[in-house]
């Protein structure tokens, strides 16, 4: 099969959906022809679709989301880009109080098909304001859906689904994934939300990992194979809706689970998944639930500091060995 990068897969999804549906348009800081987005995802789209549909905005995160919301409830399908996920804090009222709640508090009258794309994640030495993984914030706000593609295939399929979805979708991309290549078919496809992907089958222990951590988990799994530990890697792909069944089924098979997420451990995504397992699969656990997450610190700048806080293959291997005995 054809291999393309995560970045190109995202761009293909945007392009195909813009061709398919005239109400789809992009807005965000420097997404247009002059910069093509901070990570070049929107390259070439302004040339093809014009500046009206690939719209550079002022540095006004709150209004980017507010405008997207207003457009969405009046018939458009905006795709807003927040240049770095960290900056979503500036737009938090619009995301959490307006976009997320409009449909509900207006008794179902509003349809809010907004996609908010955000690059997340640490590992490129850009310190505390450009490196966080904040999915747990949004997971705590009913009304939002959350997609977190880990591969080019998932990126394209999930983004197309997100754009067609009538609910607001927080679409999290990882900066380190943009240049990663993977198989993506030429033909049209979408990936439904709420369906986890078993990235690797195994019988001894389940690792649930999201976004970039899926790749770390897969390499850790290879290392563990050499020690006779057969790891299953489950990638939920969307956190809301969350494919609880896939996680529970895997735990029923393996009896052990490590949850690997690139966000702070306290009240993080891993905590939620751990709670799901405790509530729905407790009787199948043969060892304590293990969480591999970032310590409760901001992301530091200096490379050794930053590498220390991000979960990696070694910390995953260590955690798994602590529960496989």
């Amino acid at each position, binding site marked *: 099969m054809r291999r393309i990068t995560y970045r190109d897969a995202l761009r293909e999804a945007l392009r195909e959906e813009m061709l398919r549906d005239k109400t789809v348009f992009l807005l965000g800081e420097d997404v247009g022809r002059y910069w093509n987005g901070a990570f070049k995802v929107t390259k070439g789209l302004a040339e093809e679709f014009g500046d009206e549909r690939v719209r550079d905005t002022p540095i006004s995160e709150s209004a980017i989301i507010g405008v997207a919301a207003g457009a969405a409830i009046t018939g458009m399908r905006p795709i807003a880009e927040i240049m770095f996920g960290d900056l979503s804090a500036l737009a938090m009222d619009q995301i959490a109080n307006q976009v997320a709640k409009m449909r509900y508090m207006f008794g179902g009258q509003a349809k809010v098909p907004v996609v908010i794309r955000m690059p997340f994640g640490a590992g490129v030495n850009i310190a505390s304001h450009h490196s966080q993984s904040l999915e747990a914030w949004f997971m705590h706000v009913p009304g939002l859906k959350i997609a977190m593609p880990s591969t080019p295939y998932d990126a394209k399929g999930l983004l197309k689904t997100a754009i067609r979805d009538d609910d607001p979708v927080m679409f999290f991309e990882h900066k380190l994934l943009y240049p990663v290549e993977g198989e993506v078919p030429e033909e049209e496809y979408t990936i439904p939300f709420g369906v986890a992907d078993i990235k690797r089958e195994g019988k001894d222990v389940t690792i649930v990992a999201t976004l970039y951590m899926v790749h770390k988990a897969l390499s850790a799994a290879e290392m563990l194979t050499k020690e006779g530990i057969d790891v299953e890697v489950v990638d939920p792909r969307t956190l809301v809706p969350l494919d609880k069944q896939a996680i529970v089924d895997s735990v029923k098979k393996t009896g052990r689970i490590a949850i690997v997420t690139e966000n702070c451990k306290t009240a993080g995504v891993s905590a939620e998944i751990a709670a799901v397992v405790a509530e729905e699969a407790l*009787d199948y656990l*043969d060892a304590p639930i293990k969480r591999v997450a970032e310590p409760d610190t901001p992301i530091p700048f200096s490379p050794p500091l930053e590498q220390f806080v991000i979960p990696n293959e070694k910390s995953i291997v260590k955690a798994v060995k602590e529960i496989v005995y």
Partner: protein
Amino acid sequence: MKEGTVVQWFKKEGDMVEKGEPLVEVLSEKATYEVEAPASGVLRKILAEEGTDVPVAGTLAIITALDEELPEIEVAVAPPAVEAGKAVAVPERKVEERVERRIIASPAAKRLAGEHGIDLTQIRGSGPGGRIVEEDVRRLIEELKIMPRVREVIPLTGIRKTAAERVSLSARTAPQSTITMEVDMSNAAELRGRVNVSYTDMLVKAVAKALTEHPIINSTLEKEQIKIFANVNIGVAVATEMGLIVPVVRNANEKSLTKISSTLKGLVEKAKQSRLTKEELTGGTFTITNLGMYGVDVFTPIINPPQTAILGVGRVAEKPMVVEEQMVVRSIIQLSLTFDHRVVDGAQAAEFLQKVKQNLESPETLLA
């Protein structure tokens, strides 16, 4: 935990204790526990001094009511709590309760055990800190598949439980050896017809007489002291519907054969009706157990603690015997004497058994 070490007594002998009050600190393999007084009363006797090891289910001390009297020597050797005095502090129960509360098993192991009716206390966990994991349960399930299937479970209670505890205590504490000897009962059989006594009556009398001559057998070992009993109290094991019980013929050495016979008859009758009193069941210094009626010739009885020996009696069989170079048919019985090898050697035991034999083969002496 198999045994514990007494670390510290919080009370001394003669102190009043309240039920639930910390009495003694015991160190197990893993932790120290405070053993609480199981009853209120007087701490009459400490049986396990500080620093001594006590087996699980062993007796630490005796608590009695203020006005309760016990023979001095009885107290010293009192076995299980149920029989001696009012209440005895036993660490086992305490530890068991803790173990039940603190079984560490993974939820998966618990689920699997639940599905297969497996008691987790039977499993030693292979996980960290002894956690029982699913694999441990699975292994046991596999083992059980090749084990005989249990049709029915009978809880160990009452007399059976007491018996189990006593034989366990006996087997654990006393190195036991059994010797056997043939006895020609022809004369005894003749006497039996003449004075209307049973072989058992004669056995009790013969043993009582032998014990007076070999007092070392009529004793108990307590720590580093062999205590010889002044009384010769012969327990006679009786099989009842409820189980084996051992009524005691007190001061048998002082009783005539006919008195023994009538006493024993009364005791057996009461035993079968479960009407024996505590006095009739306690204080034995030697035990006779008879399996002859079942056709048994020889067996190895287990000493009834804290006694030093027990005599097993086989069937009376007509056997050819050479007497004065003549082949004659005689009534033969096999006696099996089990003795505590810590207290006596084989020779001493043999001498005693020989005396019993002589008494039975010359039964006239039993009438004296």
